[in-house]
């Protein structure tokens, strides 16, 4: 089985193409099954966020699977491959492992170290489990990825840089308003980055929180979390008149807040300053809004830039995280390789042991008056014989690095000794329990 990932992200594709290829949340399960139906794909998972669209798959026919997946993307979204092929990246095997580890650890994110992506990958994985399209390989891979993400978060300062983006927002707000006390914040939309910033502002002393969302229910539930007030989406302009700080993070493809609208709002506000934080991509707020007097507009890139200036050892931390990821990739790949041979070795040993036990019993029943010492000698003798016989082939299997040759040996062993076919799966199931434990540990990390 080979792992592969095919997709595009904010670095390789403009927002237009990303939007074309994005899978709407409610259609994701259906799309997963569609991919699963491809004969070349054994397991699959789709990650679709505003910054990336990626299909992860486990396959036995790598070339065919890559071709099939590209075809699937074209057909599903009704666009021709030419339009987005340049933006696509394909990683196979070790590279695919490294890719998902980096993505989960937020090393591939627009805001380095932002916490959102891990949750999004968790959701994608949960959905693939629900749809029954992820199997044991992806299962193991993802749990490893979560583990790596946790390590990166706790062992490097990468995550701090994302936090510092929020604290930069607070710092800026304080430079504008002096104190955050008695100030009102308006949250438009939702998202982890948005909530993180809001939380920082609340910690900074913000008094009132208004929340609005296209879906009023979501606004209400988020408002409850912050002990704020939900306001209907249509009343946003009214909300703008009452607030000092606006955090916007919607998925809207066009601007929600425009220059002329704000000029008018400012008149109603008697020019009271207002601070816009635009976390959305594409932007929610027209950049020209920042030119209006007493309006301060920062988008996520601006905040990031300011935050970068604050973090001196940033490069070092990123390097540390990359090294950590590399270690984990090696570990996983070694484990993954051994996965191919270990069940066969176990099965082989089991088979030999069964034969030995059976034959030993026969012999012992023919000679009932052997002393205990003699029985033990026989036991030792037979064990020694099978160990000696198995030593060379097992060592050879473990040392074979080339997958094609290992496969050849494995197939030969299975045929020659009549080993059971499904050994890989039964072997992997043992890992399930161990992973459950890891998952509970992971929950603490959130």
């Amino acid at each position, binding site marked *: 089985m080979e792992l592969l990932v095919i997709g595009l992200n904010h670095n390789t594709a403009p927002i237009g193409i990303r939007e074309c290829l994005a899978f709407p949340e409610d259609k994701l399960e259906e799309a997963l099954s569609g991919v699963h139906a491809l004969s070349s794909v054994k397991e699959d998972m789709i990650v679709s966020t505003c910054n990336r669209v990626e299909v992860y798959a486990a396959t036995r026919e790598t070339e065919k699977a890559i071709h099939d997946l590209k075809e699937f993307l074209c057909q599903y979204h009704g666009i021709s491959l030419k339009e987005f092929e340049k933006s696509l990246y394909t990683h196979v095997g070790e590279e695919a492992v490294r890719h998902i580890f980096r993505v989960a650890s937020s090393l591939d994110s627009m805001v380095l170290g932002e916490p959102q992506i891990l949750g999004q990958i968790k959701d994608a994985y949960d959905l693939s489990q629900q749809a029954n399209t992820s199997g044991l390989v992806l299962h193991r891979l993802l749990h490893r990825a979560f583990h790596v993400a946790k390590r990166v978060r706790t062992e490097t300062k990468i995550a701090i840089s994302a936090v510092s983006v929020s604290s*930069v927002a607070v*710092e*800026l707000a*304080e*430079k*504008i*308003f*002096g104190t955050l006390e008695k100030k009102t914040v308006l949250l438009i939309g939702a998202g982890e980055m948005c909530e993180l910033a809001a939380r920082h502002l609340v910690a900074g002393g913000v008094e009132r929180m208004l929340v609005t969302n296209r879906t009023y229910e979501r606004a209400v539930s988020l408002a409850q979390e912050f002990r704020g007030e939900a306001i209907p989406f249509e009343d946003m302009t009214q909300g703008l008149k009452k607030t000092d700080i606006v955090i916007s993070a919607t998925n809207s493809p066009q601007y929600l807040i425009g220059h002329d609208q704000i000029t008018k709002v400012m008149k109603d506000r*008697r*020019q*009271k*300053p207002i601070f816009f934080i635009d976390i959305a991509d594409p932007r929610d707020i027209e950049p020209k809004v*920042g030119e209006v*007097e*007493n309006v*301060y507009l*920062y988008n996520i890139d*601006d905040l990031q*830039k*300011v935050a970068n*200036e604050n973090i001196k050892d940033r490069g070092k931390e990123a390097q540390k995280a990359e090294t950590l990821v590399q270690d984990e990739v090696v570990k996983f790949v070694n484990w993954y390789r051994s996965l191919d041979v270990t069940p066969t070795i176990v099965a082989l040993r089991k088979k030999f042991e069964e034969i030995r036990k059976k034959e030993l019993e026969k012999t012992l029943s023919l000679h009932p008056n052997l002393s205990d010492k003699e029985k033990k000698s026989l036991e030792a003798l037979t064990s020694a014989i099978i160990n000696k016989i198995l030593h060379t082939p097992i060592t050879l299997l473990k040392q074979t690095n080339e997958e094609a040759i290992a496969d050849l040996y494995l197939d030969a062993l299975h045929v020659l000794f009549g080993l059971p076919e499904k050994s890989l799966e039964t072997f992997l199931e043992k890992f399930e329990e161990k992973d459950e434990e890891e998952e509970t540990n992971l929950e603490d990390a959130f």
Partner: protein
Amino acid sequence: MDIYFFKFASFLYLSGTLAYLAYVLFLKGVLSRMAAVIVSFGFASHTLAILTRYFEAGYTPVTNLYESLSFFAWMIIGLLLMANLKYKIKVLGSFLTPIALILMLFALALPKEIFPLAPVLKSFWHPFHVIFAFLGNAIFTLTFCFGVMYLIQEHQLKAKKMGAIAKRLPSLSLLDDLSYLSLKFGFPLLTLGIITGAVWAEYAWGRYWNWDPKETWSLITWLLYAALLHQRLTVGWRGRKAAIMAIAGFLAVLFTFLGVNLLLPGLHTYSKWQ
């Protein structure tokens, strides 16, 4: 005697200015505290200079340009020390002390002899007129500094630069509030200065208003600040516009005080050099 105190005060203001500038460069709290102490001693020496001159001359020493400049600088430093007590804006000293220093150096270059008071200045109203006017001017100097700081800080925030400059300046909201507050104190004082001046003019020249250049320019200054106050109160002007207006107002103050004396002859020119 007063000249020695004055020179010593100037020297301390110079040291204070250097310490305040060093504070801006290195952002070490100890430097600003040091500067504040130096300037306080400078203020004490300056106060002694004014007092000794008052006793030597026998009149309130605000009769010629040297005395006026000295008095103006003394008020500015006094306000700085008061502001230091109330607000923790360490950088304010870095703005105000150099201004006071320049006034002092200017004064040092002028004749300082004590002459018998010109008959026209022998009036109950004259000291009040000058004190009100200069207190107003000194307060407007603060308004001016807050305006300049506001424009710098606003530029930093709009240009998305959160660097060394932004860190050293207070928040926009505080700067705007203080600018407004100082305007609210400065404007009535300027008004009182003009009114007492008119009353004194009636005694001295027989008319309340003579349209001499000083009077005309103080009226222009008054109108500028009146407009600013009006806009703030009614339209809710704030921030950038208010800051620019405060700077314009201060330029008018400077011209009324210095420009008119040096460039435009008129009734007030008795205080040109002598």
